[in-house]
């Protein structure tokens, strides 16, 4: 009788490669910033980060990173990110130019994915600075489209809530990191996010 064997350490790289290949096969062109014409209200704002895969993977990576680092990062990153993102958004609203926003967003997926994949216990200050720096790019991208929204407040609430929920999904996906096998899986997810980031960069550059 065949008895399923538990996944040993040697299976981890295979899992990472499998997830990476799936990630390579799945990415579609980033379409986060094509809805300016119809941007209006809460639903548009809410869907903005969710329908842009570049935003999705980076936000999930923030949650994964928080889950991997554990307290207090798991609590602080989702609180700090929206506040810093708001400053990036304010710059976008005010028309302050930020070169290479799309490239910055793609690089955020690569860097945050690699930080998760590395699985190292990074100091909280460094993690906060890196996450905060990329929050500026994401906020700027959202903020640039804010003036086009007919209901600016609804749009702003929508995209902040959408971003926060993506963090929450990342934290939930990172929950298994408390166990050895789960940690490997979370690191593999980080690797997949980094690969997806490379695909976005290839499309954005």
């Amino acid at each position, binding site marked *: 009788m065949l008895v399923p064997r538990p996944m040993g350490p040697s299976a981890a790289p295979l899992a990472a490669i499998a997830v990476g290949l799936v990630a390579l096969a799945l990415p579609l062109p980033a379409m986060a910033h094509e809805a300016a014409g119809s941007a209006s209200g809460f639903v548009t704002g809410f869907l903005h980060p969710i329908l842009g895969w570049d935003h999705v993977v980076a936000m999930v990576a923030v949650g994964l990173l928080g889950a991997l680092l554990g307290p207090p990062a798991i609590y602080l990153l989702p609180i700090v990110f*929206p*506040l810093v993102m708001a*400053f990036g958004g304010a710059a976008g609203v005010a028309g302050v130019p930020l070169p290479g926003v799309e490239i910055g967003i793609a690089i955020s997926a690569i860097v945050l994915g690699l930080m998760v994949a590395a699985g190292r216990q990074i100091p909280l200050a460094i993690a906060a600075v890196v996450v905060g720096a990329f929050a500026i790019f994401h906020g700027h991208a959202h*903020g640039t489209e804010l003036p086009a929204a007919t209901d600016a*407040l*609804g749009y*702003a*609430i*929508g995209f902040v809530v959408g971003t*926060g929920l993506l963090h929450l999904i990342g934290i939930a996906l990172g929950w298994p990191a408390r166990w050895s096998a789960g940690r490997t899986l979370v690191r593999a997810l980080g690797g997949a996010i980094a690969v997806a980031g490379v695909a976005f960069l290839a499309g954005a550059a």
Partner: protein
Amino acid sequence: MSRLLASLCAVLLFTGTARAHSPIPAVGAFYNGMLHPLITPSHALVLLAIGLLCGQHAPRVSRPALPAFAALLALGLAWPLPLPALAADTATALLVLAAIAGVCVALGGAWRGLAALMAACAGLAVGLDTRADAGPALTSADGAGIWLGAVLAVTLVGGLSAPLRRTWQRIGVRALGSWIAAASLLVLTLTFATSAGAG
């Protein structure tokens, strides 16, 4: 926490264009008034922020803050026309108050005096903004409904968030505060950018 999140989602999903002054037929002026603070996004946002501020460190903060909010809201609603020139900027003031209250919630400090001052200013701003919007059309039934709706909203949010004492629950409340602050800050910037562009 789940009830609080459900309430928040309900407010966020169902907020839309303010319809306080195009009353829902057969509901009556009083109930239309009660709905007004909940379906006006800027009012709902500041009420949510003040409610969280009150509940986060209840009863220490809520004891002075809730009566201050209720009293100044009544004053704002009853303010005789014509309104002072300052009242023209109540929409901006609401966003400023929501942003500051959101940051206070995100930081998690129990600043009793500041919270009471914020609640009083929020009450006055909501009252004056409603008064300026409605003008002479605001009846006493409208006003009573708006007052009760706003006070109930703040009390309900405060009452739901007060028992949230577990670490993850408190962090959830602080995250909500950061979301409120972020959204308010963005729209505030848009307001200033638009007025600077027009000027």
